[in-house]
C-alpha cells in the first residue's frame, strides 16, 4: 500500500508535525505585527495631523489661545534646560555609584541590599518620584530651588533615571575584562589608578550609551513634572535653574486635552518634535556603541 511512497519522503505524521510548527510561526509573526503595525499607524496618524503645523514660527512662538500663533518655544527651551541639568546631575552621581558598587563595595549584605533596592527603584512608577520631588525639592528645599523651578524638575527626573544609569554603568564596568585590571594591579597601580586609567576609559562608551538611553526615557516623562507643578501654560523661557518651566510632553498633554481640532494638530506637531529628539538621542547612543565597540 505504502509502496508508492519514497523511503525518505515525509510520512503523514511528519506533515502534521510540520503544520503545527507553521501555525506557531504564524502566531509569533502576528504577535510581532501587533506591536509594529500599531506603532506605524500611530506614527502615520500623528504625521498626517501634525506636519502641516510644523512651520518655523511653531518653534519660535510661545503658546497662544490662537492655534495659528501658538508655538513650542517655552516647552522646547524647558526640555533642553531640563535634559541638560538632568545630565549634569545624574551622570556623575550614576557613574560614581556604579564604580563604588562594582569596584569598592565588599560583597556582603549591605551591597546586596543596595543592589536590590536600585533594581526595585528602576521599576517604581514615575508619579511616586513626583510626590517625592514635590515634598523635598519644591517644598523642603524651597530656599535653594525656588520651588516649582526647572532645577526642582531636574532633580526629580535625576532621581528617576539614576537607577537605570547606575545599572547601565555597572554593566559597562563589569564588561571590562578582569585581565586588564590584573595587569594594572600587577604593575603596582592603586585601585584609584586602575579605575581612572583602565576601568573608566574602557567602560565609558557603555556608560555614555546607558546615559543617553536613560535620558531618552526621561525626555518623555510628564507625570512627575506635573506633580511638582511645572506649568502647562507659560509665555517665557527659563533664564536660570530657579525659573519656572514647562516641557514638550506637558505641552502635548495640554494641547491634546483641548476640544478644538487645531490644538490636536499642534499636539501632533509637538509629538513629532519630541520623537525626533528622542530618535536622535537613541541614534547617538547606537553610534557611540558601534564606534567604540571593543574586541578583547
Amino acid at each position, binding site marked *: 500500500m505504502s509502496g508508492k511512497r519514497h523511503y525518505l519522503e515525509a510520512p503523514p505524521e511528519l506533515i502534521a508535525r510540520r503544520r503545527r510548527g507553521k501555525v506557531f510561526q504564524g502566531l509569533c509573526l502576528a504577535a510581532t505585527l501587533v506591536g509594529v503595525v500599531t506603532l506605524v499607524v500611530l506614527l502615520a496618524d500623528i504625521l498626517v495631523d501634525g506636519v502641516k503645523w510644523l512651520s518655523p514660527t511653531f518653534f519660535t512662538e510661545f503658546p497662544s489661545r490662537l492655534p495659528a500663533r501658538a508655538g513650542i518655544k517655552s516647552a522646547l527651551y524647558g526640555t533642553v534646560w531640563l535634559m541638560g541639568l538632568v545630565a549634569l546631575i545624574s551622570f556623575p552621581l550614576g557613574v560614581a555609584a556604579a564604580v563604588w558598587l562594582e569596584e569598592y563595595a565588599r*560583597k556582603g549584605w549591605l551591597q546586596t541590599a543596595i543592589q536590590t533596592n536600585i533594581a526595585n527603584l528602576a521599576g517604581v512608577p514615575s508619579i511616586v518620584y513626583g510626590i517625592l520631588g514635590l515634598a523635598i525639592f519644591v517644598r523642603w528645599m524651597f530656599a535653594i530651588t525656588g520651588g516649582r523651578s526647572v532645577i526642582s524638575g531636574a532633580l526629580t527626573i535625576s532621581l528617576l533615571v539614576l537607577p537605570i544609569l547606575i545599572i547601565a554603568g555597572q554593566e559597562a564596568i563589569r564588561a571590562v575584562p578582569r585581565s586588564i*585590571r590584573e595587569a594594572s594591579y600587577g*604593575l*603596582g597601580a592603586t585601585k584609584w589608578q586602575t579605575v581612572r586609567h583602565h576601568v573608566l576609559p574602557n567602560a565609558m562608551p557603555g556608560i555614555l550609551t546607558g546615559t543617553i538611553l536613560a535620558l531618552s526615557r526621561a525626555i518623555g516623562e510628564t507625570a512627575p513634572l506635573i506633580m511638582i507643578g511645572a506649568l502647562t501654560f507659560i509665555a517665557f523661557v527659563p533664564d536660570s535653574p530657579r525659573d519656572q518651566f514647562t516641557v514638550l510632553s506637558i505641552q502635548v498633554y495640554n494641547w491634546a486635552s483641548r476640544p478644538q481640532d487645531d490644538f490636536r494638530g499642534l499636539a501632533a506637531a509637538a509629538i513629532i518634535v519630541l520623537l525626533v529628539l528622542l530618535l536622535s538621542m537613541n541614534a547617538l547612543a547606537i553610534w557611540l556603541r558601534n564606534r567604540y565597540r571593543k574586541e578583547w
Partner: protein
Amino acid sequence: MPTIRVKADGDAALETRDVHVHYDDAEAIKGITMEIPRNRVVALIGPSGCGKSTLLRCFNRMNDLVPAARVTGEVLFQGENLYADHVDPVEVRRRIGMVFQKPNPFPKSIYDNVAFGPRLYGRPKDLDDIVERSLRQAALWDEVKDRLGHNALGLSGGQQQRLCIARALAVTPEVLLMDEPASALDPIATAKIEELIQELVEHYTIVIVTHNMQQAARVSHFTAYLYLGDLVEYDVTDTIFTAPNEKHTEDYVTGRFG
C-alpha cells in the same frame, strides 16, 4: 613527607613558610615551605587544580583581589613577610612583577603600555629610555621601534606577550612571576619567550607556572611538583625529570596521569 632538596643557602629571593590558601572552605594550598634561589628560574608544575597558580599569586599578593581567598603562613621577600600588617600590597607588586597566561596588553599604544608602570610613580624624565630599554630586554624593540604609537592590540599574540613582559620590566622588579606565559602562543612565539626567560634570569629571579613539561625542562633550574595543594617534590630540574625521588612525581612527568 615531601622531598625538598633545593636550598638557597641564605640567598633566597622568595621563601614560603607553611603557606596555606583557602578559597572559602576549600583548601587550595596545604602548607607549603620552599625557597626560591635568587637569579634562578623555578618552574611550578602539576596537574590542573594542583594550586600552582594560586601559589604563584601568593608571591605578589594577587590573591588579595579574590575576595574569597585567605592566605596564612609567611612569604618572605628580602627577609620581610609579604603578609605582615605593615606591608602595602601595591608596593609588593611593584617589586614583584607578573606576566599572565593570556597576553593582556592595555588597549593603548605600545609606548603607553610600557610607560604605564613608570608613570604610576610620578613623571619620569627619561621615560623614552625606560621604554626602549624595557622593549630591548623583552626582545621586542626591533619589531616595534617604528610603530610605538600603534595600538598594542594590533600585535601578534607572541608580540603581545613580550610587550607584557616589557611592561612588567619597566618598573624594574626584582622577581618576575610568569603564569603559563606561553600557553596561548604558537611554538615559534613560545621558543622566543623561552629564550627570553634565559636571558632575563641574569638580572631577575623568575618563577614560572607551566603545563608544558618540556618547557619546564628547557628553561628552569629547579622544578617544584605540586599535587592537590601539596608540594610533593622540589629538586634540580634534571633530577625531577630523570630520577625523581617520589613515585608520584615520576608518574606525572612520564605522563602516566595528569
